[in-house]
């Protein structure tokens, strides 16, 4: 649909498609269907050769004389790759014992996260809440107050960002701190393994389940949408 709008403006397009069934309907001018999970359009992270093969196959479609063209990338995902979708919190049983002191746990995770930053030239997905990782203890306290049903607020929330959206951004930043911190400890860990650890064994995972519960108990659709985005 976006490809069609660009092409109508006179720009040739080639698209990578993750859902063949939708691409068949929308009919972009040129599309390469790839058999990879959501989040992995170019194949595998850290595998430049595979990424180049995908890119080449998508760019080759520009030589076609007529369209729409929908071609299948010939290589299937390899066994042992990521599952088609990340496991959801509801499908992961929390361990009997998880840390109670989430603020302390978060401080510990920050040490791993600093290692992640060192190893990756400073690259991180943190930044949605606008609050630096050094002040995440405050984020944890804010989320705990909210989960406890209290009136929770942070002075850092911009006036134009509604409370449920801000909570969602804080939750996403907290997840990022833990996920990237875990990757610093176990660089080969996949998304499924990290999700099982986060939702099963961390205090932050338990806290976000409680945040989700309060948001989901609201009748306001914006609160419910934020709940759905934090944990399902």
């Amino acid at each position: 649909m976006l490809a069609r709008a660009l092409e109508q403006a006179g720009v040739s397009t080639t698209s990578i498609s993750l859902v063949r069934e939708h691409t068949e309907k929308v009919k972009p001018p040129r599309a390469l269907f790839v058999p990879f999970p959501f989040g992995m359009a170019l194949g595998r992270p850290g595998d430049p050769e595979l990424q180049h093969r995908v890119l080449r196959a998508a760019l080759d479609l520009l030589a076609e004389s007529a369209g729409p063209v929908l071609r299948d990338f010939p290589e299937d995902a390899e066994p042992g790759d990521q599952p088609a979708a990340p496991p959801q919190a509801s499908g992961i049983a929390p361990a009997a014992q998880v840390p109670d002191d989430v603020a302390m746990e978060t401080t510990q995770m920050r040490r791993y996260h600093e290692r992640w930053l060192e190893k990756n030239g400073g690259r991180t997905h943190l930044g949605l809440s606008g609050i630096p990782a050094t002040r995440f203890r405050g984020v944890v306290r804010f989320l705990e107050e909210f989960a406890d049903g209290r009136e929770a607020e942070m002075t850092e929330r911009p006036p134009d960002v509604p409370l449920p959206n801000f909570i969602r951004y804080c939750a996403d930043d907290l997840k990022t701190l833990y996920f990237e911190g875990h990757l610093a400890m176990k660089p080969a860990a996949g998304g499924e393994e990290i999700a099982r650890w986060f939702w099963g064994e961390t205090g932050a995972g338990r806290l976000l389940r409680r945040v989700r519960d309060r948001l989901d108990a609201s009748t306001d659709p914006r609160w419910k949408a934020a709940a759905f985005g934090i944990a399902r």
Partner: protein
Amino acid sequence: MPRLDRLPQISRNSLLTFPAQVNESAPFVRPAKPLSACRLAIVTTAGLHRRGDRLFTPGDQTYRVLPTETPTVDIIQSHTSIGFDRVPTMRDVNICFPIDRLRELIARGELGGLGPSGYSFMGAQREVTRIEGETGPEVGRRLRDEGVDVALITPT
């Protein structure tokens, strides 16, 4: 994969009932030059933008400009969804925004160059009227004005 038969049922149902637009044909502009002479821009639906840029919000049909010189450490993703795994993008932004791969193609002489900007939308939207009628065509005009011959469209 996500071949629908490999997805959990809830994801499969959500995709099968997704109101995808149905078209019979497609506009089709053949590039006037070989790829080695073409200027390319990435247009992604991965909800990426520069850190500090306006975040994407639910139902957001606007776009963000990603200047080609933006260091990848300054790119973040504010479309977060439990429907896709963010770990691959955390590990390597090229998984949905293959900027390093494109630079390698340029160095090898296989691609002419990059436009001054990439563009980013948020994908997986049910309501796309504004992208179709306003913001999509606007990005098309900007690309044309920037001398871009080819747009590579990448999802997440």
